[in-house]
């Protein structure tokens, strides 16, 4: 029974891909995930389906505990769903092992984290190079691509600074350059402005918009509606379920909460 359902879903997914061959980048069908927490089973994701096309700028908005982070881990190929299918760039992700997932992350996804997650002992240039190191590129080629990417985010004059010598905004720009270095089809930004003040936040969001305008697909995950509005499409996740048109849904009582603190508490 179950197998049949899987088969059907796969067929359906394949059909969808066939219909939107040129456009569909991410197709998620009936994705569920639950985990044990203190002896209780938490249904973090329940039958989520989502399609993202090439060139989309989509925001996924939700309060803490909504399953937002779990969903991000799924999209980012850091975790695997219990049931459901995930097609990323025509590749079925939910059947891969750890090493294959690492390779997918390396090639298909560019991560931008809330806390930048740069390696503190490496320079901006070396941080940017890192995805290419794991791809096995030669030193010269790597350097060229990394310098080019740092140029795109306007940090050509900060190549040899280590993260502690850079401001928060600059660090996040290095992180964006690192995400771009691998030339991935998807940029996955998890609360990219969470640790920045409003002016630099606007700067970073502007940069993402600009990248999107040049055809880069971006997935932005946030709890902040104002940030989410930067995207052309907003979906809302709540209690493990996904709702389209998150922009219409306003959660006025949460608008002023401290996102950074909430994230750390997760």
């Amino acid at each position, binding site marked *: 029974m179950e197998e049949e359902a899987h088969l059907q879903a796969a067929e359906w997914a394949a059909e969808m891909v066939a219909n939107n061959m040129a456009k569909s980048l991410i197709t998620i069908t009936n994705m569920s995930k639950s985990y044990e927490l203190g002896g209780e089973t938490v249904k973090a994701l329940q039958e989520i389906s989502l399609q993202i096309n090439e060139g989309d700028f989509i925001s996924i908005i939700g309060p803490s505990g909504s399953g937002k982070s779990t969903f991000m*881990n799924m999209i*980012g190929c*850091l*975790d695997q769903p219990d049931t459901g299918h995930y097609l990323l760039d025509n590749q079925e992700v939910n059947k891969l092992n*750890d*090493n294959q997932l*690492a*390779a997918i*992350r*390396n*090639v298909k996804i560019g*991560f931008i*984290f809330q806390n930048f*997650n*740069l*390696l503190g*002992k490496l320079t901006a240039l070396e941080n940017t190079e*890192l*995805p290419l*190191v*794991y*791809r*096995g590129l030669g030193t010269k080629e790597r350097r060229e691509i990394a310098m080019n990417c740092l140029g795109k985010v306007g940090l050509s004059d900060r190549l040899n600074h280590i993260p502690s010598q850079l401001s928060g905004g600059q660090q996040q720009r290095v992180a964006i350059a*690192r995400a771009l270095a*691998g030339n991935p089809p998807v940029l996955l930004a998890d609360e990219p402005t969470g640790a920045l003040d409003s002016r630099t936040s606007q700067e970073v969001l502007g940069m993402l918009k600009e990248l999107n305008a040049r055809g880069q697909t971006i997935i932005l995950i946030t709890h902040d509606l104002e940030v989410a509005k930067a995207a052309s499409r907003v979906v809302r996740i709540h209690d493990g379920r996904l709702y389209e048109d998150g922009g219409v849904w306003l959660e006025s009582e949460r608008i002023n909460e401290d996102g950074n603190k909430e994230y750390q508490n*997760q």
Partner: protein
Amino acid sequence: MNLRESMKMAIRSIKTNKMRAFLTMLGIIIGVASVIVLVSIGQGSSKSVKDQINGLGTNLLTVNITDTEAVVLTDEMVTELADLQGVSEVSPVVTGRVYAKNGSESAQVSMTGTNAAYSSVKDLELSQGRFLSDLDSELRLKNVVLGSDTAETLFGNGKAVGETFQIGGISYHVVGVLQSKGTSLGSSGDDVIIAPISTAKRALKSMAIGSVYVKAESEDMLTPAMYRIQGTLTSLFPNQSDNYSVSNQEDLMETMSSVSDTMTLMLGGIASISLLVGGIGIMNIMLVSVSERTKEIGIRKAIGADRKSILQQFLLEAVVLSSMGGLAGVVIGIGLAELVSATAGLTISLSFSITALAFLFSLFIGVIFGVFPANKASKLNPIQALRYE
């Protein structure tokens, strides 16, 4: 990710924590250095013993009499042994301790009574004067040859030949001084007085010949000569075979080298334990390093590092640490060994194979004790690792 990149990362991470890296390496440095020093001392003493035994000549046979009352060798019997086919020279030996005196200088030394052949049988060399002659023995002259230490004790650094000294109130005349032969296993060959056998028998008040040194005509004749001597002794002293023994240098050498090999093995073993302890130190630090760098591992994994890359990075770091320690240990070990030989006067024997072995062992330890932490790092869950603060 290729090996060169991992190597760069490993060296970089070691460089950022120099003090810690040095302390970690110290265990390996001490381990490798002590293996090299102790084994080279052990092998050096083994070598010097072997050299000394070899220096006696491989043609030498020794008849040892353990019970001199049951087995009394007479001069005629000794002549009989000397006439055997394959035997070139024979030296009967009477030994005992005497109190030698020259003015205010005195010494307790061992006296060896023997014949003129002794010097060629035992391969002795003189630094002054001459050795005993057959005439000295026949006429019971009180002419003696001194070991180098005895000569120095009794006569200082001056000329001993031609001088006289007293044993039990009787004057003895020095005709020669032996060249120094060095110390082996605590018994000095330089602390002796060699006298004609007839004179010694009287001085020691003993007629018993304790041992006979026999020189075979050639190395090939050694075994036949040994059998003939055994045969002769059996017919001379029936049913007394437990009270004397005939041995050649090879037997002696085997005994000696088995003793010194055991000693070397023991010293090496003790030193290897410290190397092992150094390895545990590396594992400890690598485990600390993995938990300190959990976040880094998470970031690397999110960016696309697979298990192999992470494993390789941490394993290489352990191997680089241990091999750097091993290399430093080799240098310090060789230096220390040379220092010991120069200052303590011990013979050392540095062998390339032991040095290489100690270094390779340190490398091996790096791999063995690096695998566990590296494996732990490679298996970290990227989600949890990223959340780690």
